């Protein structure tokens, strides 16, 4: 039984840390804000959830378990919400995605060369 608990929690922790790590790489390496936000928004929630589930498995106290569950619920609620609002505010305040702005530039160049 102990064996199963250790292995399963280790499995969840491993997946969680891999996801967090890859999200961070994405945050650093991706070309513009929206792709970065995609990387972080997707991996952060899942990675945090995985790590918290891994910790919940090895927790012995009920209170600790309940608090971890509370943190998990909060992350699940808050993470997507902030991503959504952040993207909305960025687009609203005039930050265009890179591919879109390139397209616009190309279009302008084409139209200016035509005229």
């Amino acid at each position, binding site marked *: 039984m102990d064996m199963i608990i250790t292995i399963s929690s280790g499995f969840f922790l491993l997946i969680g840390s891999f996801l967090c790590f890859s999200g961070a790489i994405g945050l650093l390496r991706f070309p513009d804000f929206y792709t970065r936000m995609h990387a972080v928004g997707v991996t952060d929630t899942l990675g945090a959830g995985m790590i918290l589930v891994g910790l919940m498995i090895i927790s012995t106290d009920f209170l600790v378990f309940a608090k971890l569950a509370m943190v998990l619920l909060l992350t699940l*609620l*808050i993470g997507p*919400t902030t991503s*959504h*609002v952040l993207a*909305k505010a960025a687009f609203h305040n005039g930050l265009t995605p890179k591919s879109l702005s390139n397209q616009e530039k190309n279009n302008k160049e084409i139209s200016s060369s035509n005229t």
Partner: protein
Amino acid sequence: MIDIILLTLLVVVAIAIIRMKDLFAVVMLLGIYGLLSASFFVAMDAVDVAFTEAAVGAGISTLLMLVVIAMTGRKEKTNRHKPLPALCIVLITGGLLIYGTFDMPHFGAADAPIHQHVAPRYINDSMAEVGVPNIVTSVLASYRAFDTFGEVVVIFTAGIGVLTLLSVARRKEDAEKISSINDSMHEQHLVIRIVAKMLIPFIFLFALYVQFHGDFGPGGGFQAGVIFAAAIILYAMLFGLNTARKVINQTFIQLIAAVGVLLYGSVGIVSLMNDGNFFNYNVLASDPIAGQHLGILLIEWGVGCTVASVMMIIFFSFAGRLELHQHNERVKNQESS
């Protein structure tokens, strides 16, 4: 190992803050700095300090600085004076201070004076004398109650200062203008409104938990007050200042801020009248331990009330000022166009 990594990151972030010219970026990095130093406190086992740093350093102060930047502008002013003499003085002072640390006992040494003076009594006897499992609370609220009283008065004074300087509703035409501003800006942000509606009751509950659980774990009046105020600030940001002003009466908050300090002080007075020292809670009840519990409960309430209401006062004054500023600009733009 963890300490070293965290300290290195702290230094890196601090240098980056100094080098930045964009004030918005500086505020964001200060948020990171607050989070980092709080995790450093956690790694050093100073849980109560980490709690306060989390609530104040990373949360409220970031918000207040942002409101200020929204009024004053994002660019740092270029300084014209030559900083060379100042650098010399700082280097010399720093060198002397580092030289001074060579005489200090080694970090964490058991025979250091700080661990010999009053700390053994706190650690050994606080459970018998005060009966509160969390030593930090017993030191803060019972042994050092007078110092904490000073802190609460300082917070109260800050609230009064902000009110005198920034109180917006002083002039009549301004007051009319303020009530005409409709600032529920996130009308279209349905998602965030619903999530906030779900979270705000939970935050209130959690603040009360922190308030009353301070005897047994990390927490207490200061942290609870800040968390409570944070919930109301969240409400004010999403649903507009005027709605929040209708929900929470401003005069009532100001009254509560004063009542908190009074409650704290009167506990001391009552203990004086019962033939004890100032803030000696043993005389408050027939049993010394019960008296200590009662005293700590009351003064934590006083601290919580004052901190929460002063935080709200500061935020409402700052944000109200910003709103007036934006409203004036909008009117000016409309007139010119």
